[in-house]
Structures are given as C-alpha cells and as structure tokens.
C-alpha cells in the first residue's frame, strides 16, 4: 500500500533521452543568383544587386543557374547521398514582405539528394555516423530592415535569389554537444568543397533544430519543438541545452510539450514560443510550372565527381596512415584544409612529420591565434617553417630563438634568414663566448654553485636558464650545461 502513496513521475529526469534533428541552410557561393544573372555578393548597398527576375516583377521567369546545381551535386556526393536523376522544383506558397513572388521556389518531394550520411567525431573522440535525410536546392528570401525612427519596415532584396542548400539530418543526435559536433563536421566537409563561406555570422550558414525528449529506450518520438534564430554553433548548443531542460521540466511536472516553433533569444538566454502547429502554414506546395523538370546527365555527375577534393575523413585516415600522426594530431591538422595543405607541403621538404606536426599544432597555431591571423591569408610559407626547424636541428637556433624567429617573421613578413640575422637570434655555440657567460654566473650565484657541488644536479638547470636569459635565448643550452659541469668539476678538483 505504502508504495502507492508516493506518486513518482512516470520517468525521472535522468532517464529521458533527447532527440535532435538539424536543418542547415547553406548559402552557395556561386557567382550569380540561382534564377537570374545578378551578382551573388554580401554586404552591398541595399537593393543594388537586383533585377526584374529576383524582384519577382510580373511577367518574369526563373532560369536555373547551372553552377548552383553543380554545387548542390557536390554537396550531395560529399554526404554520400542518393541523387535524384531528375531535377524538379516546387513552389512553397506563403506571404511575407521579403518574399517578392509570394512563394519560394524550393524542392518538395524530389530533393536533389537524399539518404546520405556524415561521419563526425564526438567530444570524447568517438566517431559516429549521422544519417542525412535529404538536401535540396531553393532560393533565399530578402531581408527586412526595421526603421525605428519612422516606425516602419524596409525590404532589402539583395539576398533574394541567393542559392540555398537545405541539409536535413535524421533525428539521430542525442545531446546538444552532439548537435554541435555534427555542425562542426558538416561545416568542415562543406569548407573542403568550396561551395560556401559557411559563416554563421554573415548568415551564409543558418541552423534550425528540431528537439524532443522521450523515455530512454522508447521507440516513438516525443512531441518536438522547432528552434530558430541561433546565430552561432555555440548558440545552437546553448539553445538546445535550454530547450532540453525546459522540456524535461515540463514533462517531469506532469505537463505536455506542445508542437510549436520557438525563437532563441541570445540576450535573455531563453526560447520563446512563436507559433504553434495549429497556426502553422499550409505551404500548398505544387510543381513549379516555370521550370521544366530535367534529367541530370551521367556526364554532369561524372564531371562533378571528378571535381570533389579529398574530404576531411579521407584526409584524416591518410594522414594517420601515411604520416604516422596520432589521431589527435591528425584531427587538428585536417580541421582546417589550409593547415592540412601547409602540413603536406612541409612533408615534401622535410622528413620528420612528427616534428612538423609539433611545430604546426604548437607554436605556429598559438602565434597565429594570438595574432588573430588566419591560415588562409598568411604569407608564412611551408619553406619558412622547415627552414626554422632545420636551423634548430643544426644548432643554429635555440628552441627559444626559433619561436622568436617565428613571431618576428609573422609580424614583419620578412624572410626567416633576415629575421635571424637582423635580430641577432642565431644560437651562440662559440665556446669562448659561452664560457664567459658561465664564469659570470658562477660568480653571481655562489649558493647555487654550492648546491650543485653538494650533488643537487637539478640546480644546473637553473644556471642554464640564467645563461639563456643573459644571452637573450641565443646560447646553445646543451653546450652551456656541458661547460657548467666541466667548470664546476674542475674547480672541485682544484
């Protein structure tokens, strides 16, 4: 009897499983818009990149940009999708002032691509395969600009007709962190393809999330909410964390989740209900009669296939196999295709890949990050790094001076040899000069000398450090150590 008195919730919070599916909208970086000849550029004066077609003026007709299709096919292939042999568009009908035709040309029942997948690495280093439900081509809408002074809204149509690829994952992500990892993996693949800027801040990559919870192990999905208005990958993760918590609390307190769209508010760090299923649009999709369906030729598919570069996952496996990099190192290097290129170029010049990798993932990345420099734009060349590494090998630079050299090369843009010469960074291996330094140190640090003599070998390190400081890092530390030992043992003898 007693056990019935306390009513437990059907499922305690810890036993809920979160289910997330992501919809990514990617602006394709084609030269012109998807259905007209206007330039596809970001950040111009409002309404300067428009024509009668993208303005949807009466009587105008869309014509498909072949490059947008090729980019879409590239994405389809990179995500190992099935490709629909016939390209067909549909109209998605709804009213909004940024949509000049009153409908968006999109794809409904026959997306360019479907049934693909993406490998991603989770935070704990596991790889996981996430299935891609579909990916389709569509046109972007314009942008509303709110004019607070006049209490009115203006429309900028520059963005109207920018090619978009919508990439929809299966609901197979089970935590906000996994969603984040998926986005990273997707972005990396897309960056390798050179089909988009993938810049969430500029809006060239946008992400909506469908999220629901269910009892762990349960088959049926819970009622989902759709989250919008996240402006960064981190915001996606934070919004999902919030929403996951909110849903658990609602269910735990006996409430029910309502199917609705919720907007993420960055400032308030909360999601706000926008519209429920009852208010949801009926988009009245139907085939776009202005664009006749057409077959994708085998020749086009072959041509696009040939243009696909080595993708992150293949590169990762090759780097681990071919260069014997650790998975950790390989992952860092392939996470930016420019770093990967840099690395490979270095390996052509220098045989010790581990050493290249240590320099690349260590000092070089640190110094670039400190300077907010991007691998894509630096003048620093693989030859430069290899020169520095070789000089260390040949005792011409100390490790410290090598790092200093690197900094100055990055700052000044001068070549490695001139930096070493002009800043006097060359390692001093001239024993008479080094002996002078050691003599000074022995005079100045009698107590340390005493410790060394008493057999405290580690105190030698202190003196070597002081020698490096005195020489501004240029002294050859190995030789310094040898000289100290020799001198002290000599004195001992004397």
């Amino acid at each position, binding site marked *: 009897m007693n056990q019935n008195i306390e009513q437990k919730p059907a499922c305690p919070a810890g036993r809920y499983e979160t289910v997330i599916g992501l919809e990514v909208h990617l602006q394709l970086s084609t030269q012109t818009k998807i259905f007209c000849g206007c330039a596809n550029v970001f950040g111009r004066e409002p309404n300067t990149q428009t024509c*009668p077609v993208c*303005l*949807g*003026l*009466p*009587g*105008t*007709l*869309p*014509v*498909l940009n072949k490059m947008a299709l090729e980019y879409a096919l590239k994405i389809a292939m990179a995500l190992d999708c099935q490709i629909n042999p016939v390209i067909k568009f549909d*109209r998605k*009908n709804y*009213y909004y*002032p940024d949509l*000049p*035709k*009153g*409908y968006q040309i999109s794809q409904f029942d026959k997306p360019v691509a479907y049934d693909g997948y993406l490998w991603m690495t989770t935070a704990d280093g596991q790889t996981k395969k996430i299935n891609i439900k579909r990916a389709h081509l569509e046109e972007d809408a314009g942008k509303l600009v709110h004019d607070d002074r006049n209490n009115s809204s203006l*429309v900028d149509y520059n963005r109207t007709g920018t090619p978009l690829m919508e990439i929809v994952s299966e609901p197979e992500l089970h935590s906000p962190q996994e969603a984040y990892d998926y986005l990273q993996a997707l972005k990396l693949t897309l960056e390798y393809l050179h089909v988009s800027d993938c810049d969430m801040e500029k809006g060239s990559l946008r992400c909506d999330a469908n999220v629901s919870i269910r009892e762990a192990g349960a088959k049926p999905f819970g009622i989902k909410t759709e989250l919008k208005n996240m402006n960064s990958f981190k915001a996606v993760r934070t919004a999902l964390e919030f929403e996951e918590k909110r849903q658990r609390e609602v269910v735990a307190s006996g409430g029910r989740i309502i199917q609705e769209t919720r907007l993420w508010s960055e400032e308030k760090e909360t999601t706000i209900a926008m519209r429920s299923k009852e208010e949801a649009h*009926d988009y*009245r*999709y*139907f085939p776009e*009669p*202005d*664009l*006749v369906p057409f077959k994708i030729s085998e020749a086009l598919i072959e041509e696009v296939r040939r243009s696909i570069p080595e993708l992150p996952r293949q590169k990762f496996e090759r780097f681990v196999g071919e260069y014997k990099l650790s998975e950790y190192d390989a992952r860092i290097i392939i996470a930016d295709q420019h770093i990967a290129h840099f690395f490979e170029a270095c390996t052509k010049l220098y045989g010790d890949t581990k050493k290249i990798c240590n320099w690349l993932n260590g000092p070089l990345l640190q110094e670039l990050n400190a300077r907010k420099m991007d691998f894509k734009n630096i003048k620093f060349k693989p030859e430069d790094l290899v020169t520095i590494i070789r000089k260390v090998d040949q005792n011409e630079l100390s490790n410290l001076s090598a790092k200093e050299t690197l900094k100055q090369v990055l700052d000044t843009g001068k070549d490695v040899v001139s930096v070493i010469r002009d800043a006097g960074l060359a390692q001093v291996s001239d024993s008479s000069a080094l002996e002078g330094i050691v003599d000074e140190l022995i005079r100045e640090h009698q107590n340390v000398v005493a410790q060394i003599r008493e057999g405290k070998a580690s105190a030698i390190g202190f003196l070597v450090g002081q020698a490096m400081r005195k020489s501004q890092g240029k002294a050859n530390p190995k030789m310094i150590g040898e000289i100290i030992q020799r001198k002290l043992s000599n004195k001992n003898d004397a």
Partner: protein
Amino acid sequence: MKLNELTAHELLDLLKAKKTTPREIQDAVLTRIQQSDQQVKAYVRLRSNASGEQEPSGDASIPIPIGIKDNICVIGEPTTCCSRILEGFKPPYDATVIQKLKESGAQLIGSTNMDEFAFGSSTENSCYGPTRNPWNKACVPGGSSGGSAAAVASSEAIWALGSDTGGSIRQPASFCGVVGLKPTYGRVSRYGLIAFASSLDQIGPITKDVEDSALLLGIIAGYDERDSTSADLPVPDYTQALVNDVKGLKIGIPKEYFVEGIDPQVREAINAAIDVLKKRGATFHEISLAHTEYATATYYIVATAEASSNLARYDGVQYGLRRHSKDVRKTPLIDMYEETRDVGLGNEAKRRIMLGTYSLSSGYYDDYYLKGLKVRTLIKQDFDKAFQKLDAIITPTAPTTAFKIGEKTDDPLSMYLSDIYTISANLSGIPAISIPCGFSKDRMPIGLQILAKPFDEAMLFRIAYTYEQNTPWHKERAPL
C-alpha cells in the same frame, strides 16, 4: 478600301511598291480608333508616343501597327492586366515578344482590353469596363483577349497579340470573325507575359487572315533563354506552308465535340467547312477523344491552382496598388495585404484564387490538384494517339456565337462552358487556330478550330489557308 482595313501582307506589298508609307498606315489606324473606339472600347490606353509625334522609322522591315493585350510587358508603359491591383505599374523591361516586334519595326499602338488577369471569356471582367463586339455592340467580343480581337475586327489595328490559357485567343477570334492562333506551348516565349496559369499560357497572333497569322507568328516565335519552358527548336518559315492544297491530308472529327449544347447553326457551318476541305482532297475520320468531358473540370483545377500562386505577388509591397484600412485591431502588414487585395482584385479573380488555393490545400491536394494533373495526362494521351494516324483535327471553336453583354455574368459555370472546345489544346500543349467559317442568321461570326501535333503550326496554316482560299469569310469586315 482604307489602309487600316487591309491586312499586313497587303500593306507590306504597298510599302514595297512605295504606294504608301508607315506613317500613312499608322494615321489611318489612329483615325479609325478615334472614330470607332468610343463604341468598341477595344483599347484601354493608347501608347504615349503612338499619336504621331514619333515618326515610324522608314527602313523598318515590318512597320505594321499592332495592338498589344494589356498583360504583355512593354518597357515604361503601364501594363495592368486590366486590374486595379496593377494600377500604375510600368515594367522596367520589354517582354521578349515586344523586343522582337520592336526589332521588326512594329508600331505599338496601344494596350487592348481583357478580362482581369485573363480570367474570363467575355472581356466583361475588366476594371475598365467591357469591350463590345464590332459585329453587334450589344454582344461580347469573347475573351479574355476580347480587346485584341475587337481591335482587329474593327480595323482599329492591323493585327494584335493576345494570350491564350484556355481559349482566350481563339474564342474571341471566333466571336469577332478574325483569325486567332494559340501556338504550341513553348513555341513563343512567355517572358514578359504576366502569368495567369504558367503551364497553359501562350502568346499568339490575332489577325485578319491566315497569311498574317503565319507572318506574325514568324516574328514572335523562337527559343528564349529567359523562358525555361520555351522550346529550343528552329522556327520554320511559316509562309512556306501557305499552299492551297490539302490533298491526302487525314483530318479527325471528334464525336465528343458535336453533342448537346452546340448551336445548330455552328454545327451546320462546321459541316459546310468540312465539305469545302473534302472537295480539296482531305479525308475526314470520326475519332474519339475519350476524356473530353473532363477537360473543363481539369482546366479549372490546374489553371486556378497556378493562378492562386501567380497572383500572390500582388501584395501592395513593391508596385501597383497599396491600401490600408483604418482598422487598428489588425496588424499593419496583414491589413495592407487584405485591403490591397480586397480593393485591387475583382470578383472573378477572387473566385479563382479561392478555387486554386482550395485545390492546393493540404488534405485536398490529392483529390483535386494531383487528380487534375493525372487527367491532364490522359487528355494529352488522347491527342497523341489520335495524331498517330491523323494530320489534324477539326472542331468548332465555341459552341455558340457571341452572347449578349451581361447574359452570363451571374453564372460563372455557363461562362466557363464557352471554352469547352478550346481548353483541351492548352491542357495538351498542342497548337490550334480559329478561323472564320460563316455567320449565323443574325450575322454573328462563327469560328472553325483546327488542331495539330505539337510544333506543327505549319499544318494549321496549310489547312486554314486552303479553306480561306476557297471561302469568302475572311474578307468580311464588321459594319461599324
């Protein structure tokens, strides 16, 4: 005969022989418009520089005055589809057909009246009021290209352009006693034609005779990279098809087109026309186009669905009419949409938008729109099958002659039925021409429709020309 009463090819002969000038022809047309358009109301506006201040260029190859239906964009000129919602809209570009006409030296006279957005069969649904039939001003000219047909029939234009979505060129041509051609879907670019139903619309010539029809189609036809639905096929020299010879041609007569509802006088005229062609050596065969009875229903599902989407852009945001109410309970945006569309669109437009929205709505799509598409395919297959054995098909253009103004305005369904013979050509994409084939007892014109295989407009011209060479009807002019 006055210059404006001649055909384009007759005028071109006179021009070639230096017996007239483009200026004289244009003056004759403008004078005629001044005299008679008060009664006919074929035009809704004349082109700003058509009144004579701009001399037509002397070396233009075909400097013939032409009337343009008010749904074809002309750069800088108001183009309104005879709808209040497009009030003040001036396209910043020329339709492809207008570009081609301008290159040929055409003199654009003005914009002709039409049913709002081409929704109608009588030109009564125009925000400018109805056009009158030049043969009897109490009657409608047909529609929706009623202004263009009436302008040509009253010699207020030498020829004109119309658009045909379900019969909008052929039915008014039939009612007004002129020649109207709906080309194969894709033969003429739709770029710059303000869309009614994109998968059905075609621009085509309305002319006084078949030779002019062939000439004008030659000017406007051809592939256009701006229209993905236009066909990338060469355009033949249609004047080569103008031969007085139908010997050995096999022509079908669909039994489904001669059932109840057809005016006996129309039936007699068609039978007489068949006899003329038989005497010239054509053979006639009764055929069945089994899905004919579903054509009208199919058409009103497909066409209104597309129209409901095509007209969504008239929202008051960018161009045309914009209205607000003073109702503060409504959000300003929704209020603008509602007021603009309420004030700007006429009843028939609203009716069709509602019909189309309904058949595309979730829960109804499969039963209406999708089924409509399937039946459309069946109707097309009927024609494909028939044309395996035939060169052409002959039917009446409309079941009756022109009806009285106001007679059908309160009965949309009976209005819709005046297109029953023309709709199938749009649904199946094939070309069809309407030519005059006689008069009723009260002197109203009757039209004969000829249909052919896709892109075989030449066959239409050949049969129509042969008929015309052996009959007097095309020489008749309306008694204004």
